[in-house]
């Protein structure tokens, strides 16, 4: 029998994923045109086994993009802070200086409806709900980065109380060399 399991974005200020002790640190300007460059800098000495082709780069780039575009609104006066640890697993904390993801609860409800339609094989509804459109979404937003992220970050994806900082971790079956 099929079971519907729907993941959620979680807010937990005290979660251990926000413990930055021993992590490396980088800080970037809110320059939308350099998002992939910033991602490459953070992953410069990442073990190959963690990269999974360019999947890690793609997923980290989404978090950096969300911070710069939706968090800091590409305001050049605002910075993006990244803590990272690539020992044994890939772990990141990314913090912007914006107002936080105020639509987080709406997103969880959107995702519940979307995944329910998929589970019910109601593909017309699913296609209509395929992308999230929030108050600040524009035509260039894919509206699906958090959907893949919930699956990719298999050790957790947690927001802080202000919802302007996210902690993520991905574990790998083979570990690092």
């Amino acid at each position, binding site marked *: 029998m099929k079971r519907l399991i729907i993941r959620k974005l979680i807010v937990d200020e005290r979660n251990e994923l926000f413990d930055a002790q021993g992590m490396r640190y980088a800080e970037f300007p809110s320059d939308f045109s350099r998002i992939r460059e910033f991602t490459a800098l953070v992953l410069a000495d990442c073990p190959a086994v963690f990269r999974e082709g*360019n999947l890690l780069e793609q997923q980290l780039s989404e978090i950096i993009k969300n911070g710069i575009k939706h968090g800091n609104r590409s305001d050049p006066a605002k910075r993006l802070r990244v803590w990272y640890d690539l020992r044994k697993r890939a772990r990141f904390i990314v913090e912007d200086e914006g107002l936080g993801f105020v639509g987080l609860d709406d997103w969880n409800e959107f995702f519940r409806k979307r995944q329910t339609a998929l589970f019910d094989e109601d593909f017309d509804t*699913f296609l209509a709900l395929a992308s999230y459109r929030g108050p600040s979404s524009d035509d260039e937003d894919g509206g699906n980065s958090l959907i893949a992220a919930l699956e990719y970050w298999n050790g957790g994806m947690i927001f802080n109380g202000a919802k302007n900082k996210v902690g993520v971790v991905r574990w790998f079956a083979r570990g690092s060399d």
Partner: protein
Amino acid sequence: MEWMIHARDAGGFENVALKGDCDLYSAPAFAKAMLSHIAEGAGRLRFDLSGVDYLDSTGVGAIIRILQEAKKRGCELRFSGIGGTPRKVLKMSNILALMREDPRP
């Protein structure tokens, strides 16, 4: 990312070959071009993604918008050559199930 629309094949499909990274910088222009093409009456399109090694959420969003517009306008879509990371990203986004795939041309 570059794309090229080839003349209709025997099945009436126009083949759209993509090459490069389908990302936050290139995907919006690609979506805009394809949505216009569908709005102008394209009836059958086949997208060859064998030249795409990198696909991010903006690229996935472009594909979703193309799927939505094609459904609205009665345009038939096929996809081929989806491999590597793009396939994983489309699967994690649950979009792969909506894409009718042909064998690689």
